[in-house]
């Protein structure tokens, strides 16, 4: 009994000393701020900030002085929180998030097909075959590379052969925009409801020949816009109607006037602000990775 007390006590003491010494000598300085920031980032690791995943970005903020509002997925509140952790202030980011918009309405039946494609369903692969399966060289191929690329599962392929973007779920990370070989996806503020659904810069006649719903550069929209927000920009043979989102008031006059119905107005979405990062994390996370690290 005496031995038990003594030997255990000694062992405890020795163990304590070793641990204390080890803790002192070999403490790895982990900046607690990195962890704190990582916690409030969405954790979807989409890479839109330009760093390898959320933890990479958190590290870059603390150690590399990276900007605090680079995460396109998070709203200003997150940026503010990061700033708070870092003890700095951050420029007010627009409170509206961006969402991806498809600048093409050339669905099956409307855009003329050039050939029948058989092969792997990948827009980048079909791009090698005469610039895609449609006569229009600017439009959406409809093979769903964006659908596969979306880290938030916000894009689905519609029955008309064009991708459908769930604007509630879209975080505006921009992965699909980067992946689309036709550059027919764009980011726009979620409150922007009017869009020109065409990217064809060919002359009106050629564009019309390729697709029923093409911008024919008639400039009717330009003439009718009360705000001067929509303009056909570019040189002859390489022009297209473009909306200035700063000026546009979503009045919808251009939508009515457009002869080819290529300008469209969307329904507004419920939530304009950024999505809750916890919610995103819950969607994006795949559960416990069982790396064992948590047991440390």
């Amino acid at each position, binding site marked *: 009994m005496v031995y038990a007390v003594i030997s255990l006590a000694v062992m405890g003491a020795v*163990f304590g000393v*070793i641990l204390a010494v080890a803790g002192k000598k070999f403490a790895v300085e982990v900046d607690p701020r990195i962890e704190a920031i990582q916690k409030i980032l969405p954790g979807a690791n989409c890479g839109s900030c330009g760093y390898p995943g959320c933890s990479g970005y958190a590290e870059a903020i603390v150690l590399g002085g990276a900007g605090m509002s680079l995460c396109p997925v998070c709203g200003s509140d997150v940026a503010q929180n990061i700033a708070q952790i870092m003890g700095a202030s951050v420029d007010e980011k627009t409170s509206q998030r961006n969402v991806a918009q498809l600048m093409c309405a050339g669905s099956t039946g409307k855009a003329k097909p050039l050939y029948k494609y058989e092969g792997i369903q990948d827009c980048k692969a079909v791009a090698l075959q005469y610039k895609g399966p449609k006569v229009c060289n600017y439009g959406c191929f409809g093979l769903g590379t964006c659908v596969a690329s979306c880290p938030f599962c916000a894009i689905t392929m519609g029955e008309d052969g064009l991708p459908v973007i769930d604007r509630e779920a879209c975080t505006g990370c921009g992965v699909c925009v980067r992946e689309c070989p036709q550059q027919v996806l764009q980011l726009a503020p979620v409150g922007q409801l009017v869009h020109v659904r065409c990217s064809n810069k060919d002359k009106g006649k050629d564009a019309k020949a390729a697709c029923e719903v093409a911008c024919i550069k008639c400039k009717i929209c330009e003439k009718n816009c009360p705000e001067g927000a929509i303009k056909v920009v570019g040189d002859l043979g390489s022009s297209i109607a473009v909306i200035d989102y700063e000026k546009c008031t979503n009045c919808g006059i251009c939508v009515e006037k457009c002869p080819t119905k290529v300008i469209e107005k969307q329904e507004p979405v419920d939530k304009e602000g950024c999505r809750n990062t916890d919610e995103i994390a819950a969607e994006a996370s795949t559960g416990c990775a069982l790396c064992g690290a948590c047991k440390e």
Partner: protein
Amino acid sequence: MRDISIIVISAVLINNIVLSQFLGICPFLGVSKKVSSAVGMGLAVTFVLTFAGMITWFVQQFVLIPLEIEYLQTIAFILVIASLVQFVEMVVKKTSPDLYKALGVYLPLITTNCAVLGVSILNIQKTYGFLDSVVNSFANAIGFTLALVLMAGIRERLEDADIPASLKGLPISLITAALMSIAFMGFTGLI
């Protein structure tokens, strides 16, 4: 002294520590996603387990038995192992940065690896001598590494497999382990 080859074959193949004794399941399922990290973890466990087998044997023979406090085995061993892992980490860090790089991340995970404590206790339960204890510890660690690396190889392949959603992750790993365990049954009686 018992036949060393029997100890080795028994520990590695017949009574594989993971597949038939169920020790070290957590790291077996946790660190088997990639072959490279499985090899790292295996090395780290081998390292620590062999040392732990040695030291706990000494503790048992020269401290617990003489003082007649064998009943303190569990608590003494866990303290020894925890300190050992810390100590090993310190030494490796100081003496061999390369080794530290390879094993470093895995070392802290080993403290709570039940394989280490389990094998140490089994060594004593089986009344192994010093050499047998060391051999048994080492062989068990090899068995652990073998199972871990095999599992990692399979899981890398399963990454391409179109596994039903509800089975993804842990369930299919467990079923794979079950089938591995069935395969390893072929070794029973092999001594």
